[in-house]
């Protein structure tokens, strides 16, 4: 089963990368604010249903893909 994990800097956590990107976008003339930069992990797991897959992926997030001190994650199915 194919899934996508979105890892984001938690709300309230300083994101210097997002700030730098926002700064550059403004230099290009875009009226933009609140830019945050995260990470996308596409993966495939052996699972019969989404609940089983989700449980496996959440374990992966807790153990490696995200650091709970500073990052939140979201698991999505059915995206290319």
């Amino acid at each position, binding site marked *: 089963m194919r899934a996508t994990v979105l890892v984001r800097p938690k709300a309230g956590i300083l994101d210097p990368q997002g700030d730098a990107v926002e700064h550059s976008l403004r230099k290009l003339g875009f009226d933009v604010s609140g830019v945050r930069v995260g990470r996308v992990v596409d993966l495939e797991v052996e699972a019969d249903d989404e609940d089983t897959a989700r449980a496996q992926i959440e374990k992966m997030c807790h153990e490696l893909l995200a650091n709970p*001190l500073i990052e939140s994650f979201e698991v999505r199915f059915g995206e290319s």
Partner: protein
Amino acid sequence: MSTRPQVSIVRFLGSNDDHDAAWALGSVGAEPAFVWHEDAELPPSTGAVVLPGGFSYGDYLRTGAMASLAPAMAAVRRFAEAGGPVLGICNGFQILCEARLLPGVLRPNRQLEFVCEDAMVEVENARTIFTRRCAPGQQLVIPIKHGEGAWYADHGTYVQLAARGQIVLRYAEDVNGSFANVAGVVNAAGNVMGLMPHPEHAVDPLLGSADGGLLLAALVDAAAEHALAVA
């Protein structure tokens, strides 16, 4: 048989201060030994462990995240749980935080620039096994060189750590956006420490400062004591 206390230095793919650490530890009386990241055990005569600086696994995912899962780190965890002294320098600090052997996490510098300069660091807790050769409040000149050295913990955690004396070193001024200028922390048991500054680059006055030698010599003392305690 060597009478010098053995300090084991774990080398990961991408470690690059391993030889500097070995040389510096040797200069303050240790017998350095290298351990490969795939080794499942530390040498039996290990009195202390150093996780050196570098860019293990290319800093993939998050700095220290991949290295924290290496087989050698399971051995380091057992060593630490048995009371063995462990010092993580720079990438080693990042690895210890990702392994959750130390509180907090190291994040990209606020200025998003790699900093490479001498830093003034103050000893906040001189009672740890790592800082007992220093005086409380002593200012040390030790180089920093990192892109992701901003230590972070939530405010509640920070307050607890500070109250327990676990904030060991602070920068005298803001160098990277580190929370409350924290430069080094120790675990609750007092035997695992991490710091972003590089004491192994400050053991000879000819190179600008010998202040790092105070921390490394204290680690060698601790290595000798631990080796005696488990003998």
